[in-house]
């Protein structure tokens, strides 16, 4: 993690809509060449953060750097180097998808013809339909093709795959992997955990206008507990129960929640009592996120 290689860096970013404070201090750091997952419950402030990064909204406080520039002051310069996929794509009524792709491409400073053709084919998009005639998923595809058809350094995507079918979802994942292989950086806001898991090098979790957790998936997993079920030869003594921390004992059966990094310690406590059966369940992804999304459970980590 070399400093200075960050493509996006915000510190203490705040933003209010009228009296409602949507961002209460967002510290986000996206490294060059990585796919960065941006997750959080509804209304947490993902889209707001992204719109500040795009210079559509002006930050109230904190610092924001994007591609070594200021997203508000250096709009044109920066936007030549990035592309955006909104989560709610609204196309121009009488205009076809093909025309919309070309318009957005030329406004960005040109698009790669070869890429355009290839993407339209892979996403099975009909570019001759008009705005209103596209289904939700197809509107989304228009925006994805428009963004990916120009070779940019940075892709900012706000729930890009909402409405895509599983087949197209997998095409999308391939395409993002390819962009990454070519050196692009991606900020990907998403509610689809499987997508974040398979694409993201790093994740940031936002809740209630603050980043509450940031790191690789493995690092995030370390902060959550693993479930251990064991059937023992003889009942645990009270010292052992205390050592396990959060444990339920039912005769010779034990169910314990231990931190993922301390599974080994737990084994040492249990072994002397003669383990006859054992299951260790690592935290499932959804469990991990549900816990992090939970509003009252703020403390994470040891």
């Amino acid at each position, binding site marked *: 993690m070399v400093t200075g290689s960050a493509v996006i860096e915000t510190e203490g970013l705040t933003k209010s809509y009228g009296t409602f404070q949507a961002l209460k201090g967002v510290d986000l750091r996206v490294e060059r060449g990585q796919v960065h997952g941006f997750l959080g419950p509804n209304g947490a402030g993902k889209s707001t953060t992204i719109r500040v990064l795009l210079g559509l909204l002006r930050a109230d406080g904190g610092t924001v750097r994007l591609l070594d520039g200021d997203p508000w002051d250096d*709009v044109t310069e920066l*936007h030549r180097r990035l592309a955006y996929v909104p989560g709610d794509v609204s196309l121009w009524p009488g205009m076809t998808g093909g025309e919309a792709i070309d318009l957005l491409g030329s406004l960005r400073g040109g698009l790669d013809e070869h890429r355009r053709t290839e993407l339209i084919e892979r996403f099975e998009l009909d570019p001759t339909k008009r705005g209103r005639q596209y289904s939700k998923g197809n509107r989304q595809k228009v925006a994805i093709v428009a963004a990916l058809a120009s070779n940019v350094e940075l892709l900012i995507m706000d729930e890009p795959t909402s409405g895509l079918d599983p087949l197209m979802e997998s095409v999308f994942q391939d395409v993002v992997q390819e962009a990454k292989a070519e050196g692009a950086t991606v900020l990907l806001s998403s509610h689809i955990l499987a997508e974040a898991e398979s694409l993201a090098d790093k994740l940031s979790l936002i809740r209630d206008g603050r980043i509450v957790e940031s790191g690789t998936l493995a690092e995030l997993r370390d902060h959550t507990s693993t479930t251990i079920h064991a059937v023992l030869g003889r009942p645990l003594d009270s010292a052992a129960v205390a050592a396990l921390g959060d444990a339920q004992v039912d005769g010779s059966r034990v169910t314990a929640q231990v931190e993922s990094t301390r599974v080994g310690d737990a084994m040492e406590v249990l072994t002397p009592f003669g383990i006859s059966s054992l299951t260790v369940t690592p935290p499932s992804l959804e469990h991990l996120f549900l816990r992090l999304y939970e509003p009252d459970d703020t403390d994470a980590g040891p």
Partner: protein
Amino acid sequence: MSESLTGTRPLLGALAKHDGSRFAPWVLIVTALSASSVLVYPWIFPDAADRAALAAAVGSNPALGLIFGPAYDLSTVDGFNSWRSLALGGFLTALGAIFLVTRATRAQEDSGQAELLASGVMGRSSRLMAASLLALGASLMLGLVVGLVTVLFGGGWEDSMLLGFTFAGTGWMFTGIASVTAQIGGDSRSANSMAVGTLGVLFLARGFLYSVEAPEWTTWVNPLGWMQETRPASGNHWWPLALAVGFSVVALAVGFYLQAQRDFGQGAIAPKPGPGRGRYTTTWRLALRQNRGPIVTWSIAFVALGFVFGFFVTSIYDLLGSDLAVQQAIAGGAVTPEGLVGAFMATILSMVGIVAAVPGVQTVVRIRTEEVNDRVEPIMATATPRWRYYASNVIVALGAPTIFVLIAGTLVAVLASSADIGVELGDGVLQAVATVPAVWTVVAFSVAVIGARPQIPVAAWIGVLLSFAITLLGPTFNLPDWALAISSFWHVPKVTLPDPEWIGLVWISLVTIVFLAVGFAGFGKRDLATTPSTPLRGPARLLAGAGE
């Protein structure tokens, strides 16, 4: 039939609650129009001599008749009120009804709201039924409010109530027309344009045919002519209202028939597939493209307007000749025929200018509509600076009206100069050119509003409203010069005068520049409108994704 109307009642309730308030401004304006006439008349025209002078002034400016229709009797409060309010009030009520119907039908479909409703326990025709009932009810309520308030301010009971019900009748007829156009148009915008276009044509035809004293049957082919024939305060005919009810029933029946034929979210005219590649590569072309339809439609309208007004100017001597007071003034040397013609041309072209400002302001307001519909966001996420996007649209907003004024102005000039009334072709064209800066000021005001304070987009229309009110109503109310000077059109020099005051154009152009600067600064500095995410979407998605 009854099954297809299931759910109308709760829907009507919801509509009345959410969209009903949108009709309030129309009630307010029309009530103010009528009540203010009653209020100020005795005060401005206290005695018979003043009233005769008013009649002479109205008679000497046939341009007024074009908007207000015939002045049957200006010697009483109620007669004056019915002249001043009847045509305009009906026009405004009809506009309100049209917008209400379109909003509750097509606009809902465009936004996807209607889909939620349609999927509920809801008959096929209930949305149109609820929308129509709402507009009919709102028009009726407007009529009652106008009538009662006017009485309260001193209007005669029957005269005022008839006037109010005439407005309601106009609202009813256009509820019917809007229910038809809502089925034909491809989206809410074109549905509205069609209905408003119909209203505009009928309105103009009514004024024109009256002013040129066309044969009587022409009144009866125009539904707005029927409303003219109620003649509040000079005859009080109630029976034309029955015609209005009949018309709206027939139009609504057609609307319901068409609605049963068409698919949800589609107009009767199905769009064809378009080009797979785009030619629009700049915001400037995009702006042109988005306004292409309206520009073509309005150009046709202004050709028509040019002919109507031009023909009107050529007949000025006939129009003036029939007025005794004017004859006396000319004979006495108080005014010269050339002076009258020049002033008349200037008024006509100001009217053209005010009408031309409407599509200009529409273009500017559309920037905001695009913004709240999330269509500006993807453009601003490209390498397009904000000022450039705004400028592309502002150029269209200023340029299109310029062309419209020149089209209509040239036609007026050609017709007038060919008719031996002492108007040179050059004078007419020059007068049109001189009117253009005044149009720009009005449009520039909307540029300032949408750029700097877009939360209340209706404020963008203030310029049009003020110019209209001041230019047309100001002189008859003997407003002082400083009040008249609020309208940019007041500063337009009359080029046929020996010494036209060109400096006025400099002043209003400075104001225009200030408005534009405010608008551009605002648009560059403010947050773009963003739609907060829909709260329902996420949890379902979270669980769906977590299943893996």
